[in-house]
């Protein structure tokens, strides 16, 4: 029985991941003020179905977590609870946690149960708060609502950890970590906090995680870090001033949270003490002691006790719950709240913060949700509903590829028959040719249908961006609206998969370096909210994907200065705008003022270009300094067939991809020169291009050796142009690409091979590789 079930694991995981994508998209598109009931319902169904599958396959932790999630979703879809921004954020976190859990289970790796337990606890608290009330069970965390999320209500007080809710005053969320030398340099956080307290109401949560045991600590060094909430409408400069002297001796993050943002605070301290007592009562934890933020939960089998232990673990009086452990992880301390205050993205921090502040001793462990102003929801609509709302079946990619291959062979066979048909005489031949024409039409339809099977809408790749832009914008404190158009534009699955990373890089660049901070934008007469626009469309046999933003644009002068300082460009060289922009594709080139962990290390753009080129595409840039930038990636629709120009060289036929061809011409001897180091060159549109005699390069006996006897095909690759010398042009056709690597091995200058109608093999040229080979040969000569 187990063996049988295991056969379905892969399907379960695949469907679950897909369902989670749909859930995420639905959540991002949820209108918190007036949520669409059907959308909430569909989100519920995802949780329900994953829970059922997980239960059936014995994935208990997944089932348990999803059960809690399902309970919350049930409350929401029934209308017993309202969807709030904070709840929506928690649900998004749940998607992340479930993905991580499923990935771990799929890979047979340990699940990070601490994260799961913390978020599960939060979800239970939400239900307990918004539902019928606290449960009676002594060990249930619901009995001790240590972390409560609320949306509205009286402004939170910090004494005794009382009421919560949106404050009417904005606040500054400050993460302050002292570096060890801070105290030795005469700085004292007490003085800093005293200055801050003059600006407004200050609440302080201290993290002692890094403080060693007394006997081994260097008492002159500072090991503490703090999370501060300053309720004040004071200016940023005033907050900065408080830290002025200590700035070099600390890690500091200061975020503005506008009035109306949510707070996560704790309820009555007694509740958490009660939870700790409950945990002790069950024997799941041995002691609750000490002021330490690290805690070891009890036996992992008792999830409730874990939650209670985590709740009891705080920087307050009830800190370390220790007891028998069986591989359980430490609870996360209160100040694990993420540096930029987007604490709603970190349920762990929220639960610990909630627990910490619950003791009443440290009531102000506020984890603030991101402000509505700070992170406008992506404008994108979710992709078409997946999984269950269209009739479809799953087919493995190998089967599709086999099918495409077979159809490709059929096309070749049909071409051979057509060729034969042309040579026949007589009345029967005429009927035969008519039949063959019909066959050719059917084959073309079949080929197109089969190619379409592999085509998927680019929304599969675009769908990751709303969440990504939202989270990034929050982290950076920027306001960004993401627009997406053309999501239904289809392209080959392989191209789709490989274009993801380059697009991510370009979008991250736009968000990080393109769009300015809101105050800078307003100062420059722009709206505080920047726009990043992703668009895809078909353009003549290709797909064009555009990323444009209305940010600061590329600074040509800075790029040029950087290139000059690195010796990439001569001091007196004059470059066109396009040539300057091309510089950013050089490896390691970055003019970012500072490296963020988002981008700026200069390892991206060269990889972006390389990835695009490997797909047979290209990338172009245009920019308007101060106004914005555009990056356009052009890609072939599919990698399996190519439109090519057949050319003959001696007895061989080669295919030159049409996308590489600029022009074909016949040279006159007087337009050809010989330059030392470059060989033969000819004049073309004001430039001198090298001539590549294919028969010499490939070692073939050509029919035409004098240049005027053959033809020049002007082609480009890698941004460089050459003239290919061939005997004659044979015609244009669409050919099925056969892989060189799979059938022989990689050959520089050759992209693949195809079988022509007469059964002969023609090599498909790769211009970039060909130019490299030709350059090497010319230098060697």
């Amino acid at each position, binding site marked *: 029985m187990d063996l049988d079930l295991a056969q379905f694991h892969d399907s379960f995981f695949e469907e679950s991941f897909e369902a989670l994508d749909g859930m995420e998209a639905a959540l991002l598109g949820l209108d918190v003020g007036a949520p669409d009931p059907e959308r909430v319902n569909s989100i519920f169904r995802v949780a329900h179905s994953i829970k059922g599958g997980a239960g059936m396959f014995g994935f208990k932790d997944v089932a348990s977590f999803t059960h809690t999630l399902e309970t919350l979703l049930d409350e929401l879809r029934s209308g017993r609870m309202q969807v709030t921004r904070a709840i929506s954020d928690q649900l998004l976190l749940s998607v992340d946690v479930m993905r991580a859990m499923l990935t771990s289970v799929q890979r047979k790796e340990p699940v990070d149960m601490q994260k799961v337990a913390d978020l599960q606890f939060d979800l239970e608290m939400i239900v307990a708060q918004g539902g019928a009330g606290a449960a009676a069970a002594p060990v249930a965390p619901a009995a001790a609502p240590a972390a409560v999320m609320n949306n509205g209500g009286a402004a939170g007080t910090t004494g005794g950890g009382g009421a919560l809710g949106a404050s009417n005053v904005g606040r500054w969320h400050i993460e302050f970590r002292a570096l060890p030398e801070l105290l030795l340099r005469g700085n004292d956080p007490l003085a800093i906090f005293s200055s801050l307290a003059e600006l407004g109401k200050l609440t302080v949560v201290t993290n002692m995680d890094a403080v060693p045991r007394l006997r081994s600590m260097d008492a002159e060094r500072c090991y503490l870090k703090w999370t501060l909430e300053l309720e004040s409408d004071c200016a940023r400069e005033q907050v900065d001033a408080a830290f002025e002297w200590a700035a070099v001796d600390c890690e500091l993050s200061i975020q503005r949270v506008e009035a109306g943002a949510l707070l996560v605070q704790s309820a009555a301290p007694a509740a958490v003490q009660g939870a700790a007592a409950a945990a002790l009562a069950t024997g799941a934890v041995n002691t609750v002691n*000490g002021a330490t933020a690290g805690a070891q939960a009890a036996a992992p089998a008792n999830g409730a006790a874990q939650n209670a232990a985590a709740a009891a673990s705080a920087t307050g009086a009830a800190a370390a719950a220790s007891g028998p452990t069986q591989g359980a992880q430490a609870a996360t301390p209160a100040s694990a709240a993420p540096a930029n205050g987007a604490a709603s993205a970190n349920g762990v921090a929220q639960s610990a913060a909630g627990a910490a502040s619950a003791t009443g001793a440290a009531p102000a462990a506020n984890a603030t949700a991101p402000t509505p102003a700070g992170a406008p929801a992506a404008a994108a609509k979710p992709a078409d509903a997946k999984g269950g709302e269209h009739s479809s079946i799953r087919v493995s990619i190998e089967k599709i590829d086999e099918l495409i291959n077979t159809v490709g062979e059929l096309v070749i066979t049909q071409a051979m028959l057509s060729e034969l048909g042309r040579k026949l005489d007589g009345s029967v031949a005429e009927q035969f040719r008519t039949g063959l024409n019909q066959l050719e039409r059917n084959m073309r339809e079949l080929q197109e249908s089969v190619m379409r099977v592999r085509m998927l809408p680019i929304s599969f790749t675009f769908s990751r961006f709303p969440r990504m832009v939202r989270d990034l914008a929050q982290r950076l404190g920027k306001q960004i609206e993401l627009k997406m158009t053309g999501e239904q534009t289809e392209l080959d699955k392989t191209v789709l998969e490989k274009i993801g990373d380059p697009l991510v890089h370009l979008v991250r660049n736009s968000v990080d370096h393109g769009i300015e901070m809101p105050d800078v934008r307003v100062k420059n007469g722009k709206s505080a909210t920047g726009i990043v626009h992703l668009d895809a469309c078909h353009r003549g046999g290709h797909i064009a994907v555009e990323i444009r933003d209305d940010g600061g644009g590329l600074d040509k002068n800075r790029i040029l200065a950087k290139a000059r300082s690195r010796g990439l460009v001569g001091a007196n060289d004059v470059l066109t705008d396009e040539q300057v922009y091309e510089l950013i594709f050089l490896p390691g080139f970055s003019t970012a003022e500072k490296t963020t962990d988002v981008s700026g290390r200069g390892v991206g753009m060269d990889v972006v270009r390389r990835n695009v080129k490997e797909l047979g595409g290209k990338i172009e840039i245009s920019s308007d300094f101060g106004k914005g930038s555009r990056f356009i990636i052009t890609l072939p629709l599919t990698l399996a067939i190519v439109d090519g120009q057949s050319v003959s060289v001696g007895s061989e036929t080669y295919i030159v991809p049409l996308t590489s061809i600029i022009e074909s011409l016949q040279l006159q001897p007087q337009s050809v020169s010989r330059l030392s180091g470059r060989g033969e060159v000819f004049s073309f549109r004001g430039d001198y291009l090298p001539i590549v005699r294919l028969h010499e390069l490939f070692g073939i006996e050509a029919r035409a050796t004098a240049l005027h006897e053959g033809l020049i095909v002007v082609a480009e690759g890698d941004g460089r142009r050459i003239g290919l010398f061939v005997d004659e042009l044979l015609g244009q056709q669409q050919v099925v690409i056969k892989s060189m690597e799979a059938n022989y091995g990689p050959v520089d200058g050759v992209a693949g091979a195809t079988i022509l109608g007469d059964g002969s093999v023609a090599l498909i040229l790769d211009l970039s590789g060909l130019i490299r080979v030709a350059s090497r040969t010319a230098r060697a000569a």
Partner: protein
Amino acid sequence: MSVTPSAASGSALVLISPTIRTITSLQTELAERLDESGTVQIDGTAVDRVDTAGLQLLAAFVRDLRAEMRGVEWVGCSDALKKAAQALGLGAALGLGNDNS
């Protein structure tokens, strides 16, 4: 807290001015107290000056005591000490009441 305090051993630990200036000698004294057993009584009545270094050390001391399941009893505490502990967010860690500012 559900720790059963044992009988206090010896005299109370008297704090004068736990600051970075006197931190080394204070650390020595506290370490000696850690080697003993039983509840530690701390008298902070005389404290008129305290800084982050002093509070950090005291917080580490109280934490380590609790880890060894020993009690801490404040027999007296000056306003200055209490306010500073709360302002730094270490009031609860030291057992001196709510952190607030």
